[in-house]
């Protein structure tokens, strides 16, 4: 059976060129970048090349890129590091109500330590109103953090506008761009951001590798203190293998961004149009155009997400869901709740995240296989046709 992976938000295969770039660091090139001798230098050069490649992808300069163990660490660091560095200036943070867990829970941890938080609402498309940001700023605001795009519902936020407001008020601005870097054009200067989190996997780099962009001049305390790696901003022996892979993946993404988008958008739009057309009482989630190129999110009424996923999995189709059972927290996605979606309906969430490897035939398959699965489960559901 052919496997159709439409769960690229969870994991995407490495590009062959990325694997090739990593191979030497599995064997002969085993130096530690911090050591003085030539074994170390070889690796240092590789790290610096990767830094340039990642910086190039988002129009940053090399010294502004700090490698981390992934998007989650970058997000935690941005928040906690800024609070530590700016406590004397204030203790108020502005964020949105649809952030990734790594922002949401890091902020909750900060709240326990006395930080005050404003969580901005979103409209029914999951989009923040920049005017709300302006209104929420106080003299004690030390950070604004709004994600660039949400992977669960696909909507892209007006980051450049929010950044402009932040800058006018002199408030540092962070964006979680894990879902967008390497996927749509991201330019830290155009977006007016001071800090930006990214991870390698969305652009076909290795899992567990990421970076934080820290604009020159921004004061931040380390989350992980220690040696002098990463200019002393992030200590610890580097995950050389992961970083080299991320660098190569960034370089390729920079070149292929446009063609990847041109490939994904029609497939995405087919899913968003054809699934509701072939199954009654299904509605799309999020904005139709201001959305991630590979992201299709729908709600199927009267059926729970995990049960659909399991049947799709048996047919070789891998997708995700924002249902409570899937989230493992036994809670419906906070993102959908924030968009005003009813908790019961949100249980029927299906999330398709497309990648390079998906084809029109894959979409055909999904549109063929999904309706009978939904019918079978609806026939079993006490909510259906009451």
């Amino acid at each position, binding site marked *: 059976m052919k496997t159709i992976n439409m769960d690229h938000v969870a994991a995407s295969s490495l590009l062959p060129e990325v694997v090739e770039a990593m191979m030497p660091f599995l064997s002969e090139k085993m130096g530690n970048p911090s050591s003085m001798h030539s074994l170390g230098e070889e690796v240092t050069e590789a790290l610096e090349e990767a830094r340039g490649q990642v910086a190039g992808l988002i129009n940053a300069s090399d010294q502004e890129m700090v490698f981390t163990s992934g998007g989650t660490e970058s997000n935690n660091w941005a928040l906690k590091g800024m609070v530590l560095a700016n406590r004397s200036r204030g203790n108020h943070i502005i964020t949105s109500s649809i952030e990734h867990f790594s922002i949401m829970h890091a902020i909750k941890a900060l709240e326990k330590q006395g930080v005050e938080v404003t969580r901005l609402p979103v409209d029914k498309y999951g989009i923040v109103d920049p005017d709300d940001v302006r209104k929420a700023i106080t003299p004690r605001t030390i950070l604004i953090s709004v994600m660039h795009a949400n992977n669960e519902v696909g909507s892209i936020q007006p980051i450049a506008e929010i950044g402009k407001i932040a800058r006018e008020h002199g408030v540092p601005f962070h964006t979680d761009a894990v879902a967008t870097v390497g996927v749509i054009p991201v330019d830290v200067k155009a977006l007016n951001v001071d800090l930006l989190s990214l991870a390698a996997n969305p652009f076909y780099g290795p899992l567990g590798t990421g970076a934080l962009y820290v604009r020159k001049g921004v004061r931040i305390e380390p989350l992980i203190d220690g040696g002098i790696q990463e200019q002393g901003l992030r200590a610890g022996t580097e995950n050389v293998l992961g970083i080299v892979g991320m660098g190569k993946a960034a370089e390729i993404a920079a070149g292929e961004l446009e063609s990847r988008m041109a490939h994904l958008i029609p497939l995405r739009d087919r899913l968003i149009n054809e699934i509701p057309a072939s199954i009654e009482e299904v509605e799309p989630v999020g904005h139709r155009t201001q959305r991630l190129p590979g992201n299709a999110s729908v709600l199927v009424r009267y059926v729970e997400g995990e049960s659909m996923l399991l049947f799709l999995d048996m047919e070789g189709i891998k997708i995700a869901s924002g249902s409570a059972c899937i989230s493992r927290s036994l809670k419906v996605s906070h993102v959908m709740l924030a968009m005003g979606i009813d908790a019961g309906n949100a249980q029927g969430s299906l999330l398709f995240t497309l990648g390079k490897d998906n084809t029109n035939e894959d979409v055909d398959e999904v549109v063929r296989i999904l309706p009978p699965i939904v019918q079978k489960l609806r026939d*079993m559901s006490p909510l259906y046709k009451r």
Partner: protein
Amino acid sequence: MYSDVVMDHFKNPRNVGEIPDADGVGEVGNPACGDIMAFYIKVNNNVLEDVKFKTFGCGAAIAVSSMVSEMAKGKTLDEAMQISNKSVIDALNGLPKKKHHCSNLGADALHRAIEDYRSKQQGKIAERPLDGPEVCSCPVCDVNDPEEAPYCSSVCERTTGK
């Protein structure tokens, strides 16, 4: 994640459906929590002659409903009241810890159907089966506010020391 027995019951659930003239009906759960189970029973001479269910929920919820219906069928009412969380999990060859609440729901729904039948027998107006809790309380650590206990299983142990 799921045992073969669970997957078998999930793929081919036994006794799906409603009994239009059921002697007893029991329903638990709430769509906001992701699980609703409705059980319908036919009773003959104190024995569960027929048991059917409808379930909105995850794979475990469906498999549990199916297993409970099979376990119950043919049992006396008293015997069926003994079907427990643990016996369902054992019959399914285990469930992931965070799915244990599903097995509770299955037995509860069945028990409610039996209680419904008994109330009717005693001429009482059947108590409306309760809806599930409005707040999805954590079945593992019993914390009610999901904001305070967002993770399942061991996190609570770790950070609360419980």
